[in-house]
């Protein structure tokens, strides 16, 4: 009960921290991905002349939305939680609290903001007449829930390792950039040469853009195996993250 109210406190603090002192406040949460969407849309459609994905897809922008928002949620959650323990060193050194909560609340805050933005943009696109299956939005939230589990596992592991090896946080953005381009965020699986298409299955993030596209845009179909495997992977990553975190947690204070 108290862990819950404590998490709520940290989430509120986390959300407020991000926009504290910025004039537009929460508006940034929506504005930033919109700008990102505009830039990417322009670059890929007008500069690179990207082939319009799948014949039955409704255009590049909604296609990009289905990949970019989940990626942003994931990347932001992982980046921020990597330094969650380090940033709260002062607190950890003075108050005994369940430290997982610091990572948990960071991930929760990132997902809350990104999911809100995602829902808003889906509704907006629908109003512009793009055929998005808003009825499937609750199912999409299930996809976010699973992505949340995956991100939390990564975040816990990285946050614990970051206490010991400070190189992680600066290296992470580059790694994430690579990972993003290795995932079907800007392109579709079919855009790859045939013999490389199977490789995407080894990337645990591949599932998510494909999931949102299949249920909200009804472009592409996923097999039952993909659902089950990606669910198991998310759970496994969380279990591993928790194991590493628990193993290292008693020594945080010594190395912070």
């Amino acid at each position: 009960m108290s862990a819950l109210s404590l998490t709520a406190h940290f989430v509120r603090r986390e959300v407020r921290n991000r926009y504290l002192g910025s004039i537009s406040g929460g508006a940034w949460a929506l504005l930033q991905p919109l700008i990102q969407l505009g830039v990417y849309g322009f670059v890929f459609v007008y500069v690179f002349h990207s082939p319009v994905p799948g014949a039955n897809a409704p255009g590049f922008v909604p296609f990009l939305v289905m990949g970019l928002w989940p990626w942003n949620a994931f990347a932001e959650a992982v980046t921020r939680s990597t330094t969650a323990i380090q940033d709260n060193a002062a607190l950890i050194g003075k108050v005994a609290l369940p430290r997982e909560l610091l990572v948990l609340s960071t991930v929760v805050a990132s997902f809350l903001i990104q999911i809100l933005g995602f829902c808003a943009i889906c509704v907006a696109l629908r109003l512009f007449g793009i055929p998005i299956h808003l009825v499937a939005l609750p199912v999409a939230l299930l996809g976010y829930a699973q992505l949340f589990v995956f991100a939390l596992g990564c975040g816990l592991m990285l946050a614990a390792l970051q206490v010991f090896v400070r190189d992680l946080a600066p290296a992470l953005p580059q790694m994430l950039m690579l990972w993003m381009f290795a995932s079907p965020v800007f392109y579709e699986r079919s855009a790859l040469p045939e013999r490389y298409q199977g490789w995407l299955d080894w990337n645990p993030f591949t599932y998510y853009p494909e999931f949102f596209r299949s249920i909200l845009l009804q472009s592409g179909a996923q097999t039952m195996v993909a659902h089950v495997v990606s669910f198991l992977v998310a759970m496994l990553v969380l279990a591993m993250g928790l194991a590493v975190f628990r193993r290292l947690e008693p020594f945080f204070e010594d190395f912070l």
Partner: protein
Amino acid sequence: MNDTALVETRHLGKSYPLVFRSRDRLRALGQLLAGRRQVNSVPVLEDVSLQVRRGESLGLIGENGAGKSTLLKLLTGVLTPTTGSVRVSGRVAALLELGAGFHPEYSGRENIALSAALHGLSATQIREKADAIIGFADIGRYIDEPVKHYSSGMVVRLGFAIVTALEPELLITDEVLAVGDESFQKKCVRWIEDYLGGGGTLILVSHSMYHVQKLCQKACWLRSGRVERHGDVFEVTQAYLAYLERKSNKAETARGIAEARSMLEFHLLDLTLNGESSDTLVVAQGSTLRVRTRVHSRDGRVPIVVFGVVRGDGTPVYGVSTEMDGRAPLRESETVYVAELTFPELPLLPGAYVIKAHPLDPEGVRLFDTIECNLLIRGESRELGLVRLPHVWSQSVPLAAARRAADTGHG
């Protein structure tokens, strides 16, 4: 009675890892991930076994770096012990260092909510207590300012105010009283006294022997990470002060000790025997002894002065206080009192004795200080024991007369 121990540590030890280069950190990480608990480290606390029962108050004293704060962090669970074990039961509130857990960008009001949540209060409980906390902290409009604009005194006020509202079973504080101003210190001390009176348990780290003696029944002196002495507060604090005296150089010490002692509510300025203030006085058996001491009273209150006589081996012979005889020391100046006691025809038998003087608070509850002087009694007496008791022989004749009578009887 073990079930009433709120805090129990057994052979508790803490080592900090030695990490100079990032390679060391990487190696330590590998070792920890592999499940090894011991990495290359330096011990800061070793083999500390303590027990604090419900209703007890313990003062932790010692020099900087002796491991006091580390011990507190182990007790509150912020640190994980390297060796041994810690068991703490009950609702604990800890005030470690300044502004424990405050966020500098947030207002005092918001920090109250966060702190209370950290201590496990629910949102409704927090709302109920916020007014009481703000009232106790008494920092006026600053309560709505970001904490980064606070003076250190205000931060402590707020921190302590939060603790008062948590109604802890065990209160752990680290040198926080030293920061507040006089009036707030008094308020805190009064609150802690009430809290202790109501059955609360306290663990206090302080460099102020005055606060330790005022608030704690027991004290534990940590020296280089080990328990040097543990027991009654006056015994331990005096041993600690004596240690400080021995440790530093003469001139500096005199000042340090004088300072440390002057923190006491009462301390002795001197002790003279027959007007002399040397270490040892030699007098003939049956002569007159005048014992005189001067007491410094910090708050100007009238102390009780106790004089005692013990034999060289520590056997008590006699002790008396001004209050027992219905007297009070004479006021010499605003903060100095003097008392003199005369033993006409001192009935001590020849031997080595120690004269002691102590000041007590006016209530006669607390003993604050001790000065000792050696007293050597010279004499040819063959009597046994410590003192000559007044006596009269009856049913007897003078020995010489008896001898003479015996001689003539036989002759």
